[in-house]
Each structure stands twice: as structure tokens, then as C-alpha cells.
């Protein structure tokens, strides 16, 4: 394996384009190093992107947050403005691993590792976050939802790299939340998870919603029927019942010793209801 530290995304794209063997990008390395150690991946070229100028920065404009691809979970949590505006995303990222893992792990690494149980991804999908991608033909932006296409697989071409996460500014009267179920209280991988992002109307009812689920299908799901169940309601019991049913109906989980199909399906609905209540209160709604 060869190792290169690049100083620009363009250099990374050139290297990936000309490399005959397998390339891998190294961000925080909390997935890559484990996979190297276990022999799950055998890249010919490893490209460290942490020295590219700007990758450790979070910038904010009137329309969006731009989060650098080497910003760690710990750094994300220290950005008070971002945490106040998108608490669900920050909390989701902070659930990943230990303090030590938080010192390295990134949002984009979590996304591109493409685990169905990746904790940051449902919250990003509910927020309608996008990623900026650089390739040989230039820049493009796609929805986070369209990055993962199967467990362990992304839609990026061999010579494309994500250069930033773009998060819209949260509107007034809106809130987000993310919850996961794990059998322990810390250091475990989600058995089911749910993220909800809501905007309230003047009268305090839900004007629009985005509901997504993790660990219950090969990729994170954005469940339109679940969002519809909430719109127009103030999260009364009937709406929550509908939400739960819509979520469970969307699930197609695996069955394993950490959670059966039935358990994951039911839990996804329960978590969506609880996350919806938190998001609703964060948006200024009263239950």
C-alpha cells in the first residue's frame, strides 16, 4: 500500500483517476483503519485528505452551513451555532463511538462507509443535507440520500471525492431530532434508528416534515408516508399512530442476533414517534 497526503481535492481526483489499483480516501480513519487491520480492504493507494486547506472548517452563510470533510464529531459538537440550529444532527454524530473515536470520526466518513446503521445519515437525510462532489468533470451537488446505494457502496465514481457537506439554514419554527436503539447505553451500533425534522405553521401544527429511518433496510430510508402522517397535526395520538404504522410498513430489516425483524420493525415506529415529539418541542410546539 502506498500513502499520500494531498494538499488539494484536485490532486486527490488526479491521483484517483490515474491509479490503476484500488484507491481509498482517509478521513478520520475510524472505519478505514479497522478495515485495514481486519484485512477487509486492501487499497493500493491511501489518500489522506486532512491537510487540504479548509477541511477542518465550518462556515455559515445566509443560506447554508458548509462543513469541511475533516471536521470531527468532537469539533462539530463544539460549534454552538450549529448545535443550536441542528441539534439532531449534532447529537446523532456524537453518538458515534467513544470520546477517542469522536476525536477523529467525520460525517462524510460515516456516510461513505455506507453502513445501513450509520448514525449521522438519517439526521442528514431528514435535514435535506447535500454533499458537494469534485470529479474530473468538475463539481456537482447531490442529496445525502443519493450517496449510499447499498451496504458498503456509494454512488460516487472511482475518481470522485466529497469536498463538503452543505446543510440548509434551519427555518424559524422548526426542529430536528435523532434517536437510536442499542442494547447498551454506549459504544454500540444501532439496531433501529429514526430522525425527524419538522417545520410548524403559525397555528402550531406541522406544516412540513421529513422522517428517515436507519438500520431497517439496506440503506437509510426517507419515508414520505410517515411525513404525511404528521402534516396538519399537532402530534395527537392518531397522527403518532399513523406515523408509527407508516414507519413500520417501510421497514425491510435483516434478522440477526442483535435484533429480529419484528423487533426492528416495531422499534423503528416507536423511535420515530419519540423523535417526532422532541423535534416538535424544539420547533416551539407544545404537546
Amino acid at each position, binding site marked *: 500500500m502506498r500513502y499520500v497526503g494531498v494538499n488539494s481535492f484536485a490532486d486527490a481526483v488526479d491521483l484517483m483517476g490515474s491509479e490503476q489499483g484500488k484507491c481509498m480516501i482517509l478521513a478520520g480513519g*475510524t472505519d478505514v*483503519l*479497522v478495515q485495514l487491520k481486519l484485512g477487509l480492504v486492501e487499497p493500493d493507494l491511501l489518500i*489522506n485528505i486532512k491537510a487540504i486547506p479548509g477541511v477542518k472548517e465550518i462556515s455559515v452563510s445566509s443560506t447554508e452551513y458548509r462543513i469541511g470533510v475533516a471536521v470531527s464529531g468532537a469539533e462539530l459538537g463544539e460549534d454552538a451555532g450549529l448545535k443550536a440550529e441542528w441539534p439532531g444532527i449534532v447529537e446523532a454524530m456524537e453518538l458515534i463511538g*467513544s470520546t477517542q*473515536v469522536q476525536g*477523529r470520526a467525520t460525517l462524510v466518513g460515516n456516510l461513505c462507509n455506507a453502513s445501513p446503521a450509520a448514525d449521522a445519515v438519517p439526521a442528514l437525510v431528514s435535514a435535506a443535507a447535500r454533499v458537494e462532489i469534485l470529479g474530473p468533470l468538475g463539481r456537482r451537488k447531490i442529496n445525502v440520500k443519493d450517496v449510499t446505494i447499498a451496504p458498503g457502496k456509494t454512488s460516487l465514481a472511482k475518481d470522485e471525492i466529497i469536498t463538503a457537506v452543505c446543510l440548509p439554514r434551519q427555518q424559524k419554527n422548526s426542529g430536528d431530532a435523532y434517536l437510536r436503539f442499542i442494547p447498551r447505553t*454506549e459504544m454500540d451500533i444501532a439496531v433501529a434508528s429514526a430522525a425527524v425534522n419538522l417545520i410548524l405553521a403559525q397555528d402550531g401544527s406541522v406544516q412540513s416534515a421529513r422522517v428517515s429511518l436507519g438500520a431497517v433496510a439496506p440503506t437509510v430510508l426517507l419515508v414520505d408516508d410517515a411525513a404525511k402522517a404528521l402534516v396538519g397535526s399537532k402530534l395527537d395520538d392518531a397522527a403518532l399512530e399513523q406515523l408509527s404504522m407508516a414507519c413500520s410498513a417501510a421497514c425491510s430489516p435483516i434478522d440477526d442476533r442483535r435484533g429480529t425483524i419484528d423487533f426492528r420493525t416495531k422499534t423503528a415506529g416507536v423511535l420515530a414517534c419519540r423523535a417526532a415529539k422532541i423535534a416538535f418541542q424544539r420547533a416551539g410546539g407544545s404537546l
Partner: protein
Amino acid sequence: MSKIHVSTEINGDQVEFLCETDETLLDVLRDQLGLTGAKEGCGTGDCGACSVTVDGRLVCSCLVLGAEVEGSAVTTIEGMADGDALHPLQRHLLEGAALQCGICTPGVLVAAKALLDKNPDPSEEELRYWLAGNLCRCTGYDKIIRSVMTAAAEMRGEKS
């Protein structure tokens, strides 16, 4: 395969080393630099026995490549005591019998110090969550938590 030349700072000293591309910082510390305080419990980020800081951040040195610390500042357990004078955390872990086999201890100390550098007055709950990635097979954790809380109080200048 040609080795990579890395210059970095470790516990305040300028250090240069050559490493293989797939060699972790933990391997470099232990096998090349003779800094065997950091331990390899798992090698996969789960146990925290290899904890060090890189540019002020607590990390698992088994999840960092040696090549990645070019131009960084690393601190390890070897940098904690001041000559023969133990750091209050080290002294209180000893006095509080917060170690048995001792394999987890360097990692616990480095992690606890990183917390106290950030927050000199953590709650017990905060400390327990902070140390959730430092596994200990022997002590049952209580003595570790109590010793760190006592050390923190002493470092704040409170009488115990």
C-alpha cells in the same frame, strides 16, 4: 516498499521516525520509539488502552497511522509525570487502588487528563460517559471514577 519519513513532536520533544505506510501510531510509539505506556488491547478502537492525544484531541493511537502525525503534536502517558513527581491523577489512581493488572491504566490516565484539561470540574456522569471507551476488565470502574474525581478536586485546590 519505501518507508515514510515523519517529523512530529512527542511530549514536547521533536522526533523523527521512518514507518511503513500501514504502521499505526501505536506501533511506532511502542516498537520504534520505546514508548510502551500505550497498550494494544484490541487494535480496533474499542478498548482505549492505546489512548494518546494528537494536537490536543484524545484519540486511539491504534486508529491513527504513524504517517498521519507529520507536523502534529502528540502526548502520551510518558509525558504525564513531572520527572519523578507523579501527576495528581497518577497518584490518586495508585492511592485509590484503581488498578489491578494495569493494562487499561495508561489509557485511562491520558483520557481523564484530556477531560480535566477541558473541564476541571466534571460531574460523575460526565466522567463516566467520557471514559466509556476505556475498558477495564479488573476494577469494576468505581475506584477509577472515585480516584479521578478526587484528583480533580485536588487539582482545583479543594481540600479532601
